[in-house]
């Protein structure tokens, strides 16, 4: 069966759902960050598949920007994680609950 754009969209939806499941499920903050990167990559795959379908190269440029912003966000997020670890020696999301009731 020929591969259509719907195949790529379904694959991207599956990846996004698995990343979302990981963000909600895991307590290790680093793995939560990795699942956020999975979701960003699923969005990138959607962009590239639709670029091929519509024949427009602009979506490749959007993917380029998404990668740049993801790099900046990963760097700043990991720096914050390092600070949090220095402060309390834990990176579990259920240990940080100062603002909770």
């Amino acid at each position, binding site marked *: 069966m020929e591969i259509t754009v*719907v*195949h790529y969209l379904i694959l991207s939806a599956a990846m996004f759902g*698995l990343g979302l499941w990981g963000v909600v499920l895991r307590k290790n903050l680093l793995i939560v960050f990795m699942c956020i990167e999975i979701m960003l990559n699923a969005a*990138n795959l959607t962009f590239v598949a639709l670029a091929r379908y519509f024949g427009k190269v602009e979506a490749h440029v959007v993917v380029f920007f998404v990668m740049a912003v993801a*790099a900046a966000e990963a760097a700043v997020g990991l720096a914050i994680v390092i600070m949090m670890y220095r402060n309390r020696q834990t990176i579990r999301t259920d240990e940080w609950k100062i603002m909770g009731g």
Partner: protein
Amino acid sequence: MGETILFYIFGGLALLMVFLTVVQKNPVASALCLVLALFNLAGLYVLLMAPFVAVMQVLVYAGAIMVLFIFVIMLLKLRDQDLIDDQVTLPKLISLPLAALFIYILVKKFLTLGPLAFPPVDANFGAPKEVAGVLFSKYLIPFEITSILLLVAIIGVVLLAKKESR
């Protein structure tokens, strides 16, 4: 025919690696599975005639961001009591059908679109020359703003991660 096989190989491996990333207890193993998933995605990008994006993915995502992740994982020296109770055991796998339900809602909508085959495009569709032609003419201002964003991120990271000097 070859494209079909390659799509299923790359796509299946990417999904498997993403699943392994989510369920593993050891964060280093998770990071390495994610690197493999990113490589498989780069293969999918090549299938979609996006060679520039594929190489960017390998260089930036798998080559820089994941290396940064692994550095930080190694730096933090996680002990067992940080990782305990975080393992995805069978009771937690019961939540997977909820995620599958979310995916299914999206997939059902996509399937109503009907089989949309890829129209033929120019031979050098996603070549760096084409992407650069758009990037440096129509999207020049976002490009420059992105470089300012990266500068701000660098300054922020250096300030956040530096040790307190007492």
